């Protein structure tokens, strides 16, 4: 990095970038403070009083889901690896059908705030809540760390802030602003931040997409041709295999990633929790429809942006820029609209990190306060609802502090695998239990525990002994080699293992909960007795 004397993207103006970002923070803080006036009960704090409409929540889901990894990462991967980068976005999108068809509405009807609520409905409360909270915290932690570490890289790329101290300060500021959002605004404030951010992100990428296509007479084929020519003219950018086609292992690795992506989304705790912010299951359905529309549209934009960056900026320039492939979208913005558009895109990228981190923090703090504190430690006898919210707020501060410290420590690390890890844990530890719990009447406590803890352990063990952690050039610990599992993505093994453990655990236990499942099924399918919206 020392060779890059300029630090930030050449031609960009850090002051413009910082200015636009500061404006975003001020506007959202005002909105968060206004939204916080009615936040009193646990339902207000965790679920925004269930008062959001489907379209609002769907937009917020898109804001939550389209992290910096998907914005900068996918556009960059397409610019550098071509077609193989596009494959990510398809997995991320198709995954929403699992949420739409199997999870969103039934979950909304059965639970209150967390995944633990759904499991605790018919199983022994304390063990399953502790398990659900463990996997929720694990997923949130991995995801959070990846976002915060990414913030460090983004700082040097976009704001021209150099050196350890400078970068650490910016990570600290991002963390503190995020904590304020969560503390003051609760779920309602956080949701508004997501909505605004999603709007800016989609508007910004839409403008760039039209701009790029306009340069090629709205002809996608010509854009592809130009991108391919700029990359050497041998169609490598257009055909699959540039990234994952190397060997049998990398091909298997891609298959594993593809499965984790499609099954992980519906198990991500911060996505699940969003379904509780709407008043009915019908609104939950509308949420997913809106989310699918925004997310699909956005990934179509990134396809154009990625190839646009390859054609107009050039793969070589992108690879040599600070931040590497992550620089593709910002560099394209600079090429198209000069420092102002770059400033806007840079600010959007920061807002993205901020909003995603806030969403994760509120989920993790809710899970701890609601599942662990209120139901495991206090056994459901919390003196008043305000105590639980107080605990959630304290937890949010702790998680925020952990995120800041983790982000500072991890900023030089290769953490791309952390997002894949979060999806793999979500797909192996969370999804099987949720599906069994909703659809399988024989499912019981032991099945849930085996599936959650088994899935979590398998995933983490396989990652620790994978080439992502040791034994390769790009590993987290490049010097050591204790890897024996060949794939960087454990999903191919850990997901079936977890589904299987759920079955074995269930059948080996004598606990029968079929009667309780009848009640759960009636409630989940009809919404009878579900938590209603609070009116203020």
């Amino acid at each position, binding site marked *: 990095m020392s060779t890059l004397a300029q630090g930030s993207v050449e031609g960009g103006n850090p002051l413009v970038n910082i200015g636009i970002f500061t404006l975003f923070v001020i506007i959202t803080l005002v909105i968060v403070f206004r939204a916080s006036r009615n936040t009193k009960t646990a339902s207000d704090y965790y679920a925004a009083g269930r008062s959001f409409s489907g379209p609002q929540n769907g937009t917020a889901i898109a804001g939550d889901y389209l992290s910096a990894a998907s914005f900068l990462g996918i556009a960059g991967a397409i610019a550098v690896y071509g077609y193989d980068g596009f494959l990510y976005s398809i997995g991320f999108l198709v995954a929403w059908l699992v949420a739409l*068809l199997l999870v969103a509405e039934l979950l909304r009807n059965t639970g209150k705030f967390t995944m633990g609520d759904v499991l605790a409905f018919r199983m022994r409360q304390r063990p399953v809540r502790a398990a659900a909270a463990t996997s929720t915290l694990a997923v949130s932690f991995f995801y959070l760390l990846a976002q915060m570490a990414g913030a460090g890289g983004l700082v040097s790329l976009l704001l021209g802030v150099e050196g350890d101290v400078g970068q650490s300060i910016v990570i600290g500021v991002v963390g503190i602003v995020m904590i304020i959002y969560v503390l003051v605004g609760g779920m309602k404030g956080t949701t508004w931040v997501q909505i605004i951010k999603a709007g800016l992100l989609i508007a910004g990428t839409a403008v760039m997409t039209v701009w790029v296509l306009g340069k090629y007479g709205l002809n*996608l084929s010509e854009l*592809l041709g130009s991108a*391919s020519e700029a990359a050497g003219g041998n169609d490598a950018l257009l055909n699959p295999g540039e990234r994952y086609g190397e060997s049998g292992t990398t091909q298997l690795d891609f298959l594993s990633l593809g499965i984790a992506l499609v099954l992980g989304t519906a198990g991500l705790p911060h996505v699940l929790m969003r379904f509780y912010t709407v008043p009915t299951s019908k609104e939950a359905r509308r949420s997913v429809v809106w989310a699918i529309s925004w997310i699909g549209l956005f990934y179509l934009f990134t396809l154009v942006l990625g190839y646009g960056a390859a054609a107009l900026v050039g793969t070589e320039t992108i690879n040599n820029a600070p931040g590497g492939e992550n620089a593709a979208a910002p560099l394209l913005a600079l090429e198209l609209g000069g420092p102002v558009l770059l400033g806007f895109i840079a600010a959007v990228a920061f807002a993205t990190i901020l909003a995603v981190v806030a969403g994760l923090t509120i989920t993790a703090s809710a899970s701890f306060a609601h599942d662990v504190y209120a139901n495991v430690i206090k056994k459901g006898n919390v003196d008043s609802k305000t105590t639980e919210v107080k605990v959630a707020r304290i937890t949010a501060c702790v998680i925020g502090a952990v995120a800041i410290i983790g982000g500072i420590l991890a900023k030089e690390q290769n953490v791309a695998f952390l997002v894949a890890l979060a999806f793999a844990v979500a797909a192996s530890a969370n999804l099987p239990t949720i599906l069994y719990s909703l659809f399988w009447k024989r499912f019981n406590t032991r099945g849930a525990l085996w599936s959650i803890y088994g899935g979590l352990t398998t995933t983490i063990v396989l990652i620790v002994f994978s080439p992502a952690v040791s034994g390769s050039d790009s590993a987290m610990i490049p010097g050591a080699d204790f890897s024996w599992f060949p794939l960087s993505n454990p999903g191919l093994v850990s997901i079936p293992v977890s589904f299987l453990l759920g079955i074995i655990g269930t059948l080996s236990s004598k606990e029968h909960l079929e*009667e*309780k499942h009848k009640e759960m099924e*009636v409630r989940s399918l*009809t919404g*009878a007795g579900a938590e209603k919206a609070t009116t203020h």
Partner: protein
Amino acid sequence: MNSTEPQPPEADMWAQVHASEDFQRLRKRLRNFVFPMTALFLVWYLTYVLLADYAHDFMSIKVVGNINLGLILGLLQFVSTFVITGLYVRYANRKLDPIAESVRNEVEGGDKQ
């Protein structure tokens, strides 16, 4: 819930509703739609992933200009996702919501909330 009238124990009430004709029809309609549809899109997605992963030559066949089969199949994944979403919403609005609502009213009415 604090009704003074004698009522069957709660578990019985849920079991009764569960066994009712309306609810069984709702349950069947939901499962008959979501399970096959899930299988369908997962198989279609996996086929696509396997093709992109292992059938490079096939996916590299150019169809129109620089647009190859891989890109078309990829874009078709977007199309199928949007179509399945639309189909489900239509199905749920027409075939699921009305029954769900009537069962819910029955339960909550009987609950004296």
